């Protein structure tokens, strides 16, 4: 139970043990635990960031929906305007067309009337000549009075 050289042997063993424990137990485990701590911290901060990003995305989605609604309203108004315009235009076109058709028809009628008038006057002159022939019984030669009849016809 005396202090002997064993003391120094044990001291050397103790120093060796400290080195070995540090080399094989402390260093690998504590660095691993440090890595784990880092990983957990990273994970937590990543989830925090994810939450933040989700919030931002939600805000952006609300904004986008709002914008889309506004745009839709705008488009609807435009479409309404445009349809009114188209309707008006169509109505105007139809009116103009009908007026044109009516005018054409009236002009045609006028021309027909004129032509009928000429035809009638021609026939009236022929009838007048025929009637006069009958009345005068050969006394009047058509060829002789042609000039005066033509004058007559022109005057009708």
């Amino acid at each position, binding site marked *: *139970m*005396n*202090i*002997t*050289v*064993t*003391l*120094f*042997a*044990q*001291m050397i*063993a*103790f*120093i*060796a*043990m*400290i080195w*070995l*424990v*540090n080399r*094989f*137990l*402390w*260093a*690998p*485990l*504590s660095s*691993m*635990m440090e*890595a*784990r701590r880092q*990983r957990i911290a990273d994970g937590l901060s990543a989830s925090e960031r994810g939450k933040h990003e989700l919030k931002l995305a939600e805000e952006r989605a609300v904004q986008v929906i709002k914008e889309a609604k506004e745009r839709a309203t705008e488009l609807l108004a435009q479409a309404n305007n445009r349809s009114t315009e188209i309707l008006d235009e169509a109505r105007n076109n139809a009116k103009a067309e009908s007026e044109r058709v009516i005018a054409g028809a009236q002009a045609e009628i006028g021309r027909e009337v004129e032509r009928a008038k000429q035809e009638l006057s021609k026939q009236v002159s022929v009838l007048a000549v025929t009637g006069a022939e009958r009345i005068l019984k050969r006394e009047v030669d058509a060829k002789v009075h042609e000039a005066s009849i033509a004058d007559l016809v022109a005057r009708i």
Partner: protein
Amino acid sequence: MSAVENTGGGSVEYIQHHLTNWSVGQGFWTLNLDTIIISLMLGALIVFAGMRVGRNLEVGAPSGFQNFVEMVLEFVDTQVKDSFGKRDNGLIAPLALTILVWVWLMNFMDLIPVDLIPAGLHALGMDYFKVVPTTDLNTTMAMALFVFLLTLYYNIKVKGLVGYIKMFLFHPFGKFLIPVNVVMTAIEELAKPISLGLRLFGNMFAGELVFLLIALLTFGATISAALLIWFPLQVVLDVAWLIFHILVITLQAFIFMVLTIVYLGMAHITEDEH
């Protein structure tokens, strides 16, 4: 009891026999082989366990033994951080862990039945074998002395040689009682390693002695009616002391570690922090 029989019997001889080391050499040059072999074997066990855990480190979901090792590690780390804060250098924590685990294992040898290993070795032809390395003063004082050398080193490194000498001169009574201060501080500093080593040695030695005394209850008994009383009593006492001693060995290992940390922590405090 076979280890005892050829000493001729007798309680004193029985106890003395158990407290004698297996050694070579004479006088100061005595080498206690049992102390050295057992402590090295336990050290090898720690290193082997450390290597096994270190090989299959699981970062994500550790299980089983790794959990336990991590628990011990964090416990030691907390103790060191409490004392050192940010001044921690890389040596203190492994040193504390070594002390806790190694001392605990060496103390644990105390729980092995006192006659088991000596009896087995006696069958192989060895007469003396002291199983518990921490009941050898050389072991505890070796560690205490190394801790003392470390405190000396860090005292001088942190405070500077002048600062360290100043601590002797002006502590604890100020500059007017310098001779008293020197004596007081010297005693204080020397008491640290001595008490550190002797406390562990004393507790383990006493514990071993109680086990020996309990074993003596039926020592040399022959088959008789008296044995019917003594034998159960011995078993009960043995179990009671075992349970109590589990606390003692853990506590002593813990105290050795904490005091080491505290002494080294004190060595790291500079003068202006007093």
